[in-house]
């Protein structure tokens, strides 16, 4: 794209990008703007997609002949009201960096994904959830105002009252409405520490019951054994605010942040034996009743301790299946899933659960029910692939809702089947992207 007559400094180059789950990689053009005029420099009709840290499990920020706009140069803090708890920040700032700024000043972002390098813009575009979506909602709940760069229209300021439809479409809009450049976020007061109570559960239905009973906890998620013999047994982590305790020491430095890309180990560690060993160790470590004090940053960024876990998937990578099953259908779903796992014995390296109590907006992952997330090793292997398909069919049969931003195995027909009003939602988004200039591999795969 760079021509000989083009001034240098437009910061456009080519590089190979891959999704975090390693299921998709492509040589693409990347622009790395760090100044506003560089945002204006690309021709308005050039296909593009905004990119944050590139830590989405799926290929949401590249592909489909679009220029990826790497927004990490826009990472400046613009305004902070320590009295009211409002922060205006550029979209390329990482969640980890923002929390590092806020925590010593008595504030924090209560909704944060597990990866500290995820950017503010990415969190808005994916409408991510945090450690207890039932209590805190999804990321859009924090956004008071945002600024969007729309090719040909320039910078637009949006909030729930001004250009409300475009604001709503942008939150969870997967970057299709334009490039988010900044946002004003509503902060919360952090607990001094987290008192983490672990409640052992016998199966997924038991876990769902505990999740519902602890809906107001700051941290709330379940870990379950995904092996057929003990399927669903595990522990629900209930993190309550503890403002009396002396918080445990915790290294908050950027050096601890999980890297955006991890070199895979040469072989997949998560074969049947590796999964069995890991589950046995986790069971011994976690499935004992009791209470432990946890530093808030440790609760916010559990993935910082997961470098070897992700590297262990090897070059074949992983796939994350994440579906939200409505409460009335969850028990039946859990039983059917246990039966399916017993029959097919997939390699599930991680199985976790969360409680949701929101309202589904657009294509975002929200609603009322229990979300299950499964990490499967070597997803291209026929048996694993077959399980992914059966899992999707089970979830569909129980009125499940998939998480688009997590699941590389999801296809357009499954998504349409999962969302009865898919076409209405797609058109609502397409209204702001009529010529399809904002696009990615994700939007191609799901026919958005």
């Amino acid at each position, binding site marked *: 794209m*760079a021509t000989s007559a*083009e001034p240098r400094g437009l910061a456009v180059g080519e590089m190979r990008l891959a999704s975090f789950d390693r299921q998709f990689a492509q040589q693409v053009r990347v622009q790395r703007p760090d100044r506003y*005029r560089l945002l204006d420099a690309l021709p308005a009709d050039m296909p593009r997609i905004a990119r944050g840290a590139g830590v989405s499990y799926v290929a949401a920020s590249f592909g489909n002949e679009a220029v990826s706009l790497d927004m990490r140069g826009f990472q400046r803090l613009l305004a902070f009201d320590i009295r009211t708890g409002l922060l205006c920040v550029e979209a390329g700032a990482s969640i980890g960096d923002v929390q590092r700024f806020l925590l010593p000043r008595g504030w924090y972002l209560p909704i944060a994904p597990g990866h500290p390098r995820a950017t503010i813009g990415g969190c808005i575009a994916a409408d991510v959830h945090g450690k207890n979506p039932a209590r805190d909602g999804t990321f859009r709940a924090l956004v008071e105002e945002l600024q969007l760069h729309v090719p040909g229209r320039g910078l637009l300021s949006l909030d729930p009252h001004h250009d409300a439809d475009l604001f709503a479409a942008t939150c969870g809009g997967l970057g299709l409405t334009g490039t988010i450049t900044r946002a004003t976020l509503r902060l919360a007061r952090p607990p001094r520490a987290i008192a983490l109570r672990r409640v052992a559960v016998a199966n997924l239905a038991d876990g769902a019951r505990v999740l519902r009973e602890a809906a107001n906890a700051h941290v709330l998620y379940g870990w379950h054994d995904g092996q057929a013999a003990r399927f669903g047994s595990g522990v629900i982590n209930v993190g309550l605010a503890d403002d009396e305790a002396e918080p445990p020491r915790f290294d908050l430095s950027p050096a601890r942040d999980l890297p955006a890309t991890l070199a895979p180990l040469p072989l997949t560690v998560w074969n049947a034996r590796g999964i069995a060993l890991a589950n046995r160790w986790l069971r011994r470590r976690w499935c004992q009743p009791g209470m432990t004090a946890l530093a808030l940053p440790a609760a916010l960024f559990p993935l910082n301790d997961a470098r070897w876990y992700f590297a262990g998937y090897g070059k074949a990578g992983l796939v994350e299946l994440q579906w939200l099953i409505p409460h009335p259908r969850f028990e039946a779903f859990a039983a059917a899933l246990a039966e399916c796992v017993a029959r097919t014995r997939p390699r599930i390296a991680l199985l976790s659960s969360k409680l949701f109590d929101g309202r589904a907006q657009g294509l975002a992952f929200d609603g009322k029910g229990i979300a299950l997330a499964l990490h499967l090793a070597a997803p291209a292997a026929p048996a694993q692939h077959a399980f992914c398909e059966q899992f999707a069919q089970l979830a569909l049969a129980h009125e499940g809702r998939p998480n688009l931003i997590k699941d590389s195995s999801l296809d357009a027909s499954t998504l349409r089947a999962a969302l009865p009003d898919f076409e209405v939602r797609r058109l609502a988004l397409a209204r702001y992207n009529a010529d399809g200039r904002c696009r990615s591999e994700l939007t191609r795969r799901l026919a958005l």
Partner: protein
Amino acid sequence: MTAIVVGASSGLGRALADELARRGQVLLLVASDARDLHALAADLQLRHEVEVATLALDLGREVDPGARILAALAALPPPTSLLLPVGLSRRDDDFTLSAGASGELLAINLHAPLAIIGALLPSLRETRGTIVLFGSIAAARGRGQNVAYAAAKRALESLHESLRQAHAPGALHVQLYRLGFLATNLTFGMALPWAATDPARIAPGIVRRLGKGSFARHLPRRYALVALLLRSLPWFAWRRLRR
């Protein structure tokens, strides 16, 4: 005491502004776009609680940038450091540029530093301050590309010598860094012989040496060897390297 960073919104200038603010330095930041300057100033004020003033200035068109900077300095403490990490290069800087385009390159890479130094020299002499110029490995040897850019950067070498010759040691510190490939917008997407250096890695050293003598050196230091090799090539061999 105020440090002035010209070209502060991007690359090395931004890294230097951040490092200076981290050390509590009062700053005057100069760049072409007020939107970038306001964002950077807000960020530095919030993170480091320092006083930051800004001046939006198009160095390619501004007739007297020194006067504008002097005016902006009126409300600030006296200047002690002037850092000029400013530069523009073009892919078509190969004898095909129009006079206007060549003029813009020279204005930004040479005229602006010269004019700004001229205007601020009396104040910097008073504070026994530091002027920091930034050359380029591209000026090590002339070639058919980066023609005006390299000529301007080599002229900065002469300007550096002139400043040092005109001032007694200690009366004014004049420092010149001949930069190798840095990971900035100027190099992003280019096929480089080796990895470019993150400006944030070299900024602390530059700031640490402010007020500590006059010198010219390559940065990163390994580029001294690269420059030596380039200059040692016999002419017939150098000519054969043209593309």
